[in-house]
């Protein structure tokens, strides 16, 4: 399988041969930053288009068609417009926090975006608590949402923010527990090692019962954590007009909009890393010919393909299910998902201790 590490090492050596190490590092950091932001923006645009087309498909419609071939330029048009839309100055708000909130949300999502394993050797940073870092960074977003709701001085945004605070913090628990279950199976928190450990089979298959339970819990909890339907209460359109971002206009609203889609990608990416082998192709022990063919598909394609597939499932939820109510939402988490998750963690530990996994 092609290792992108060879390119980056070659580039690093090239830079260090003409300049001191610190300068090379600075240049590399800048390049990585620019590339990340670019990929971030492009993926967000792709995701918006992806969701629009998918939901049109569920709803017997066509979706964007007229702007560019098959409507692919639609989202670009939206972006141009939203960039130059007026930012409304509001009276009687906490102006500093109001302006800060969208940036917090977008920073949280960019940071956790950065740690995803894009492909063989394509990773910004690899350290031994990569997964932990990812969860920590992604949970920063709730702060932005709370601030947005609080600082807008509006009852809808306040109710939306309170809901999202209760919801995101609760569902973080289940996300954490189901990831812990896999960490127990893998015995590591490093992203590279997690992927490498799945070379002979994805964790979803290796951990059988326990991993499948963890996967289902993760999907539900991740949907809850990203505020997507059926858990989209913080911005429940039919109750709270637009929830916590009711008062935001122009690019500030655009940030929330982008972050919402990118968070969808991030949770899908984490799911594919933890359960479906990250960029690792589908390998079935013993079928060497099959494994060889699978290896010919580039690792980036594997990773994105898995992430898109999981996003597809989450989008499918969103457009089919009615929205739950806040008390039902919390009951689901605290009465069902978390106890099951805890039990599942013990089950996985037993499986690992007695070597009952593949």
């Amino acid at each position: 399988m092609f290792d992108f590490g060879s390119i980056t090492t070659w580039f690093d050596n090239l830079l260090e041969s003409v300049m001191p190490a610190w300068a090379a590092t600075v240049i590399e950091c800048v390049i990585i930053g620019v590339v990340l932001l670019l990929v971030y923006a492009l993926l967000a645009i792709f995701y918006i288009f992806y969701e629009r087309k998918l939901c049109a498909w569920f709803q017997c419609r066509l979706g964007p068609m007229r702007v560019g071939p098959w409507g692919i330029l639609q989202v670009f048009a939206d972006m141009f417009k939203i960039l130059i839309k007026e930012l409304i100055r509001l009276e009687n708000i906490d102006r500093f926090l109001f302006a800060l909130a969208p940036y917090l949300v977008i920073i949280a999502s960019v940071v956790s975006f950065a740690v995803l394993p894009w492909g063989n050797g394509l990773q910004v940073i690899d350290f031994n608590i990569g997964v932990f870092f990812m969860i920590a960074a992604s949970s920063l977003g709730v702060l932005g949402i709370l601030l947005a709701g609080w600082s807008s001085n509006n009852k809808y945004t306040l109710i939306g923010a309170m809901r999202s605070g209760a919801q995101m913090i609760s569902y973080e628990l289940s996300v954490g527990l189901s990831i812990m279950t896999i960490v127990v199976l893998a015995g590591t928190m490093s992203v590279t090692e997690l992927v490498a450990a799945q070379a002979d089979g994805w964790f979803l298959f290796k951990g059988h019962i326990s991993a499948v339970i963890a996967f289902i819990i993760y999907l539900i909890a991740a949907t809850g954590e990203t505020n997507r339907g059926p858990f989209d209460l913080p911005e429940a359109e039919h109750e709270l007009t637009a929830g916590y971002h009711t008062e935001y206009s122009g690019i500030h609203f655009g940030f929330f909009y982008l972050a919402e889609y990118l968070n969808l990608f991030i949770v899908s990416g984490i799911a594919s890393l933890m359960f479906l082998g990250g960029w690792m192709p589908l390998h079935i022990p013993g079928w060497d010919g099959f494994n060889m063919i699978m290896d010919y598909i580039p690792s980036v394609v594997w990773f994105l393909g898995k992430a898109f597939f999981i996003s597809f499932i989450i989008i499918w939820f969103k457009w089919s299910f009615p929205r739950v109510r806040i008390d039902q939402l919390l009951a689901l988490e605290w009465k069902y998902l978390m106890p099951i998750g805890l039990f599942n963690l013990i089950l996985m530990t037993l499986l690992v201790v007695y070597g009952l996994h593949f």
Partner: protein
Amino acid sequence: MEVKIKGMKREDFKDNEYIDKLVEELNASGANVVVGQFDKLINWGRANSLWPLCFGTSCCAIEFMHLGAARHDMARFGFEVARNSARQADYIMVQGTIVHRMAPALVRLWEQLAEPKYAIACGGCAVSGGPFKGSYCVVDGVDQIIPIDVYIPGCPPRPEAMFYGLMQLQRKIKVERFFGGVNRQEKLADFLAAHPEKNEAMK
């Protein structure tokens, strides 16, 4: 540089005199090449990304729902991102009668829209009061209280008519000028001078 209108066939539209006039005016005053190109790009973005504010008061709103539903599917044009918060929408389509009690709410919504913003009067009632003209509490045409860009007659207009109206709005946007033009004209200082009571709050 010459301003051209792209996107739709000219012969499909019969009532373009006023847009032609606008184009002529723009061409007469001359446009900078670079700025003109930027204008084109921005107008392209704006015209193709018109997010409506959900604002239906009566029958026309049901036809607007049909516009969004599967057969007519306004998503094809990118109109489907209907925003419920006025701050994020681009145009307000007044679907139905506006009565005295509703008028202040409509004006308020209009003021809440972020620039650039457009208004469409959809249906007989919004255009002129329609069948309820002369009633004691009906506003005879919303243009009495907010500026209207496009009028769509009908009671209620068919979804196809609404498309035509929306496409007319797109054409209108495509000949606007971003640089030196259509954004909020009133500067904050002027606003504060006119409303001294707001001085404290805006600091």
